[in-house]
């Protein structure tokens, strides 16, 4: 009897377990749409007659009727629906990337206003024209060769449909591992790269490249020969920028440091503190060193004179335009808004604005405490410094990290400006070397400290599974990868730019004549004054005596 009771209980328990398992299995299985359900949805869709009455509430526009049918004989199938879902994902990402690219393009206007505002009125037209023409020079050079060098081997981005036609990276083998050096396809966007996804990534990467180019014009303003500027910018857009861009973003060796050398997730630069800003800032330093300081900038004892810009309102409005454009720069660097962790765009945007905020505090408070005035131009440079610094880590850090990174950048830009001017004796009229070079390097390094390991864009970064994690969150090797990136920027990019522009100096001369410089570059170089109705102040004696002092 007892045995029969135990057997009965066991049977009951087994039946219960089976029933439970079946219920769980039913709950786990995704409900599948049937042909009947699709037919039902089609029957419920609004008719043409209904739609003809208008849809003020927006409830009947966009239905199953709008899903394209591959074969009209069989009608709508699950395959059609799935294809439309896939295309919608790519479409969302295309639109997101393009619109953020347009925002970045508009940053050129901000740069033009900041740089011209910080220059004297007699050079306004020339400075504006450099900022205007650099867009053209860079775009053309990038189209004919730069894009191919940078992105020719960047296939595999699922956000933009795979970009499978960008599949040729020149690779060298060292110590038994393969390292990407430059891309080899995509020149003129011809042949297989005549592709919708490639066009989107071209536009987005192009406006980034142009941002780097326009940084140099600021540091060399008021004395750079227009011809030299044009040739130098074309070569930078064709070779200097794309090469480093490939190493970091195009599948090149820096991005492979994680896979090949076990350094974190490889060199990480989410939106370009290194690729865009440090490349621009360090090239600016190289060219400014070759050109030399403006006449009257330094006294015989080496002390520096402040040469005040002509329009602080243009500077501050320009800074706002740049801050606005940065919402394209950083959140846009997800290259999509749908899937693969891209919903983090909100976090990236908040990090961006927060770093700009704390950096403004950093610069303004530093100047107020140390110099006694809340200096407007340094405050402007402060917000830019914070935005530059957060560009690389924006996708990997939390808001506290972003605030600290920004604040440090704000103070750092003030210290760096003083160092460049008083120690290096390099004349940088707008502070471009400090804002973009110094703070760009800081931004790259900061990932190695502050990346919090929560950002997981599709499960891996640079081919290494997991999230980017910095020293403060447990991965010291990421910091090493970031330092290697910084060393490459200083050791290779700076050197390459210095030698290239030195050669250009020998061939065509980088600097305008003393007579042109003293008169202002507007009339001699551009043939037109920026502000023809302004009455110029008489030049100080030191400028008029410059021609006597010149030895070349």
């Amino acid at each position: 009897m007892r045995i029969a009771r135990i057997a009965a209980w066991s049977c009951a328990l087994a039946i219960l377990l089976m029933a439970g398992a079946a219920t769980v299995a039913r709950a786990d299985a995704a409900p599948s749409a049937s042909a009947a359900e699709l037919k039902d949805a089609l029957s419920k869709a609004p008719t043409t007659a209904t739609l003809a009455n208008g849809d003020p509430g927006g409830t009947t526009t966009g239905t199953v009727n709008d899903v394209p049918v591959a074969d009209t004989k069989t009608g709508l199938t699950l395959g059609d629906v799935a294809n439309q879902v896939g295309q919608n994902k790519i479409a969302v990402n295309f639109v997101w990337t393009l619109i953020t690219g347009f925002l970045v393009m508009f940053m050129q206007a901000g740069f033009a206003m900041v740089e011209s505002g910080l220059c004297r009125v007699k050079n306004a037209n020339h400075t504006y024209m450099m900022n205007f023409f650099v867009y053209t020079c860079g775009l053309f050079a990038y189209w004919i060769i730069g894009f191919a060098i940078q992105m020719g081997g960047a296939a595999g981005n699922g956000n933009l449909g795979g970009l499978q036609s960008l599949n040729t990276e020149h690779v060298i083998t060292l110590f038994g591992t393969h390292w990407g050096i430059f891309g080899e396809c995509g020149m003129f966007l011809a042949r297989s790269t005549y592709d919708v996804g490639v066009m989107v990534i071209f536009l987005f990467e192009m406006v980034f490249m142009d941002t780097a180019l326009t940084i140099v014009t600021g540091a060399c303003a008021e004395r750079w020969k227009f011809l030299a500027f044009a040739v130098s910018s074309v070569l930078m857009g064709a070779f200097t920028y794309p090469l480093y861009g490939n190493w970091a973003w195009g599948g090149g060796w820096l991005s492979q440091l994680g896979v090949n050398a076990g350094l974190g997730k490889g060199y990480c630069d989410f939106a370009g503190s290194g690729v865009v800003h440090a490349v621009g800032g360090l090239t600016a330093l190289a060219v400014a060193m070759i050109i030399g300081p403006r006449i009257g900038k330094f006294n015989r004892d080496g002390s520096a004179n402040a040469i005040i810009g002509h329009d602080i309102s243009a500077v501050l409005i320009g800074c706002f335009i740049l801050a606005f454009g940065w919402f394209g720069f950083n959140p846009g660097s997800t290259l999509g808004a749908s899937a693969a962790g891209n919903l983090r765009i909100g976090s990236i945007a908040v990090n961006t604005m927060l770093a700009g905020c704390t950096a403004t505090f950093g610069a303004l408070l530093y100047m107020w405490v140390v110099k006694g005035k809340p200096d407007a131009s340094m405050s402007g440079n402060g917000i830019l410094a914070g935005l530059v610094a957060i560009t690389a880590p924006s996708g990997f850090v939390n808001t506290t990290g972003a605030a600290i990174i920004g604040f440090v950048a704000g103070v750092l830009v003030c210290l760096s400006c003083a160092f460049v001017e008083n120690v290096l004796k390099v004349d940088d009229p707008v502070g471009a070397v400090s804002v973009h070079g110094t703070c760009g390097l800081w931004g790259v390094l900061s990932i190695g400290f502050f990346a919090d390991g929560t950002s997981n864009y599709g499960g891996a970064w640079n081919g290494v599974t997991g999230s980017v994690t910095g020293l403060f969150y447990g991965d010291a090797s990421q910091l090493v990868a970031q330092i290697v990136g910084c060393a490459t920027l200083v050791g290779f990019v700076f050197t390459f730019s210095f030698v290239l522009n030195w050669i250009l100096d020998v061939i065509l001369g980088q600097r305008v004549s003393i007579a042109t410089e003293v008169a202002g570059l507007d009339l001699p170089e551009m043939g037109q004054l920026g502000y023809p109705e302004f009455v110029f102040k008489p030049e100080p004696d030191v400028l008029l005596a410059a021609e006597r002092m010149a030895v070349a």
Partner: protein
Amino acid sequence: MAATKSQGINFTLFMGGLTAVCAGVAFFDSGMAKLALILGLVCAAVALWGFFKIKPLEGKTGGTPQPAVMKLIGVVVVLAGWLFVLFGLHLTAGVGGRLVTSILGFAVSLAGICFILAPAVNKNAIWKA
């Protein structure tokens, strides 16, 4: 001399040459591409020669000649720092060791800019005259 027609002509030639060279490389397997490549190289060379020829017409500039050897040494030191960083990655597999070599190499590159190149480009600066 400021901006001139000669500058404009040579810049046009330079851009045309560069475009033709790139077209030659991009479509190298077609017959016309090789011709474009050669023509492009010739145009670029002529443009560079043109730039060089009109350079003296610029007149006295505020940029004074600086010691080339010192500048070269600076460039070599900056480059050497970077190469040391790359070499250091293969010296040791430990993160601590790699951190030290990376920082050292980076510091050498920075020192090359600050203490060799910067003084080199200011050696005969106009403001010292």
